[in-house]
């Protein structure tokens, strides 16, 4: 646990908190981007180059942009005056979040003693990941690709109908 880790962890947590607590929706989206970037830095700090860069490429380059677009195209970025920013079902949300956190924490605590400290860290290059994806895990990859293509076609069909109905 180095100084860099604490710095990145603080940044990530601050970004996550800001995403929940800020009033303006676009600010929330930007804060969420900071949290994404923090996660990517954590991956990079663990020498997981591919995961880190993919995190930046997908989450900052695509997901954050998509979130921002969705906010702009659907409604204003200001929160309504009455009611505040908290949902009425915040208690249920809290319970779900706590449950997820507890499960993750339990999993982490369970796995920690299982790691033998003496074995050297495996060096995984991007090439190895590519070979694994194209060789052993080619079926899951193709299934995901099919799913994404179906989603894309579905999105196009939804957009087309809307256009025809509008005219």
């Amino acid at each position, binding site marked *: 646990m180095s100084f860099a880790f604490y710095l990145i962890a603080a940044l990530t947590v601050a970004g996550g908190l800001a995403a929940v607590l800020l009033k303006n929706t676009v600010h929330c989206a930007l804060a969420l981007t900071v949290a994404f970037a923090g996660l990517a830095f954590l991956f990079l700090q663990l020498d997981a*180059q591919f995961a880190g*860069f993919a995190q*930046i490429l997908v989450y*900052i380059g695509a997901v954050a*942009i998509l979130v*921002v677009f969705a906010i702009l195209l659907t409604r204003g970025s200001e929160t309504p005056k009455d009611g505040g920013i908290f949902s009425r079902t915040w208690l249920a949300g809290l319970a779900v979040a706590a449950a997820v956190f507890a499960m993750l924490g339990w999993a982490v605590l369970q796995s920690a003693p299982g790691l033998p400290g003496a074995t050297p860290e495996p060096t995984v290059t991007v090439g190895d990941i590519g070979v694994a994806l194209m060789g052993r895990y080619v079926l899951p990859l193709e299934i995901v690709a099919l799913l994404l293509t179906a989603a894309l076609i579905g999105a196009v069909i939804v957009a087309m109908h809307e256009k025809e109905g509008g005219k």
Partner: protein
Amino acid sequence: MFETADQIFVLLKHWLVGLLPMALQPVAGVVVSVAAIVCFFPALFALTTVFERKGLGRIQNRIGPNRTGPFGILQPVADGIKSLTKEDIVPLSADGAVHFLAPLVLVVTVFMGFAVLPMGRNMVLADMDAGLLFYFAIGASTELSVFMAGWSSRNKYSLMGAMRAVAQMISYEVALLLSSVAVVMISGSLSLTKIVEAQNHYSYGLPHWYIFTPWGLAGFVMYAIATTAETNRSPFDLPEGESELVAGYHTEYSGFKFALFFLGEYLAMFSISGLGTTLFLGGWSAPFSFLTWVPSWFWFFSKLMMSIFVFIWLRGTLPRLRQDQLMNFAWKFVLPMCLLNLLVAGLWRFMGDGWLRWVICSAILVAAYVGLGWEEMRRMHIGARSYRYAE
């Protein structure tokens, strides 16, 4: 002698770092390299602005800047002083923090892209295993800064410019990535230094650059189109089309913040040209085997400046596209061609040496180009040319 000239910057860096105590040397090495990049490319930017204005002037039959210094060469100095002394105006209703951060995010992310570019033999700041992936990851983050600038200005022109910019960048980023993937397929590496090494061979005195293969030429054309769109250069400059949107997403920026946007755009142009040079034009390798004695960095920057010249030439030549033309072009022409190019690259890889693969790969690409282009043109229903005169 040749070795010294080739490695002069590397030797200079080692000498500078060697002056410091041992403990500081690793840090100092990084600092010196970063400082060199941060100083050199803005200087190149200053020169390029004069070059661009002179070149555009030449294309448009006028003289261009010629009042400051000999041949207007001091124009960027005057521009710099002007932008530093101008008032920094922030609109009253603007979102202060985001408005302030946007140009910074742009310039910082663009500068990071230079870290993985091999600018000469042994001249790369961070020789990463996944260098290309790093570059694209960083490049994708610049979109966010454009959006931040447009949204925080609270100006409808800014917002429209930002929306146009982001839509355009997302569309053409697909083409940018797919055209580069062909190179990765053939060279078998995401490391930019390895990609240059793979092209640094000669047969009959001619280089094995990827642009001199059917899939490489097609990929390079797609890459060039996509980079022009990614950097918001004419004919893809809709996000800042001055006749429609004042200045697009940076309408509400003045003084040095505007200069930062300007700098960011030119730096993006440099770095993306450098990447194109690395991927398709052999990076720092010489164009003929008898010219390998010329320093490697000279070739890299020559190719870079040639690309910049083409950008300027295009800007002076082509009219701006319409929004629907832009999107149709990206999704109906460039994207299918890129996908086909991946297939052709695979064929090329597995057909082995010989003339047959040249014929088959070229035939597929030319047939697809002609077929797609013909189909698209037919759908547009372009009639006979008509003229309208002012009455």
